[in-house]
């Protein structure tokens, strides 16, 4: 097993775990964490793609493009996470809840 396949499988695994957790948990903070795990999975796959033995460039060097994509992706992820956290704090301050209405059967919509 080469380093590339190890990283790629690890990345896809992280992505899948994050996706499962995002869909399965209701707490908003955990949803945000799950999204970040998903994002890390994608970044791992991209880093694996940049590995010299896979690089599209000849002679085989580290491919710079996926690394640039990861850097951009991290910037996007940081701003999106910041916005999500800020909204969650505001939502908690106004409603006292940490889950969205449809995800919390015990609260108001006990009929669901």
């Amino acid at each position: 097993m080469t380093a590339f396949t190890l990283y790629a499988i690890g990345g896809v695994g992280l992505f899948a775990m994050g996706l499962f957790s995002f869909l399965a948990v209701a707490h908003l903070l955990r949803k945000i964490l799950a999204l970040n795990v998903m994002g890390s999975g994608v970044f791992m796959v991209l880093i694996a793609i940049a590995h010299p033995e896979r690089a599209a460039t000849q002679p085989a060097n580290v491919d710079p493009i996926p690394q640039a994509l990861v850097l951009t992706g991290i910037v996007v992820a940081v701003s999106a996470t910041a916005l999500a956290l800020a909204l969650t704090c505001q939502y908690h301050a106004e409603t006292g809840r940490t889950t969205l209405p449809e995800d919390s059967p015990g609260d108001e919509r006990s009929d669901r």
Partner: protein
Amino acid sequence: MNTPHPGLWAVLLVALPLALALAAYVAGRRIRPILVWIAPLAMAALVTGLIHSLIHQGPFRYEVGGWAPPLGITWKVDGLAAAMLAITASVMGAVCVYAPGYFAGSFKTAGAGKTELFWPLAYLLWASLNAFFLSADVFNLYVTLELMTLGSVGMIVLAGTAESLAAALRYLMLGLMASLLYLMGVALIYASYGSLDMVALGGQLRGDPLTWAAASLMIVGLLIKTALFPMHFWLPPAHAGAPAPVSALLSALVVKASFYLTLRLWFDVFPAVARPSAAQFLGVLGACAILWGAIQAFRADRLKTLIAYSTVAQLGYLFLLFPLAAAPAVAKKAWLGAILLALSHALAKAAMFLAAGRIQQLAGDDRLDRLTGIGQRAPLALSAMALAGVSLMGLPPSGGFAGKWMLLVAGVQSGQWWWALVLVAGGLLTAGYLFRFWAIAIAASDHPSQRVPVNWRMELPPFALGVAAVLIAFLATHAVELLEIGAAFPIGGTGEVAP
């Protein structure tokens, strides 16, 4: 005399709203009254310049910063991109004229300072929409998609209610999840083909499992963002809970953007992977959306919820394109019909939400049972809704009619009559829920009507958009000529792009 490089228009179309966003944030309300007028006029001039050079010099590509792919980002301008830019400028321009009156009238007491934040976010959304429609780089498209989501979410919470916070959070979470699905697809595409340029990718995609996985991830991510049934549940609360000018932008433009990319990927990049069975499946989901959206719109007890569910239904029509275009003989007709429908829906839906905002302001509420006889107090706003409704129902002559007619003919000619049946049934259902509102609005009101002077700045923009949604039918042949320029469409189109 040298004519300017057509890329200049494209660069300015992104740079100007970005600069306006910064200016509006830094200088705030001091320069806003000037920006409100400068922005729509300048952007209209830029779009006109772009379309002019497109008609005279043909479609073109532009390498941002002079960096060629694979390192740099490529923009591609063809008829479809230009049409989307033009519709963005029309809707954004109308919203810019409308919004000051709306925020001044609806947020008099609390949060008046907060609504100033609408302007930087709206200009940012404008810049990201323009960059999105110009871009031909699948990763750059991811970044602009995220920018659009962040701007939209920021504007939804301007409504300041707990419901709008919950709607914005739900929208943000699903939007981010959908973007990550798309990004994983992009990573897999790059792993297989070593390119991010849609034009370069288009020719070389194979039908291997990795490409299927990548295509599925990207398309599913975009379908969530386009709110295709059954992934539509986030849309009605977000679009109905936002302030009216924001609802107009979200329903008219933002959901169209992800549809636009689905269309581009399906026909330009993934033809080797796009199976007829997958196309039929998308068509079935579209038909379900038409039915379900109409039923929910009929059951809605608020005007804006009704209009938001109507968006779910109208988006369903657009997805009938995929099964219809699977028949090569009528593919081009279906493609043109769906795009005409998307363009006229953008105009009509923006008109509806802006008019609904005015009606909500006059009635103090948008609950349908409080709107009895509202037509007497807001005749111009109600006319705007009527004109937009004509287009949504697909009555001739209107843009909605032209688009649906082309889809209908494509369905009949290719022997897929069941899609034609869905189209006709959908029109009747649309009429059903719209007449339900009109019956309330024109009913004699209990108390004698107080005449309210027409607020031109708030009632003329939706009226103009409603007129445009109807007039687009008379310009349909010109619109088709524009859309055919460098048509991104492989079957029956030229498909050529000048260097």
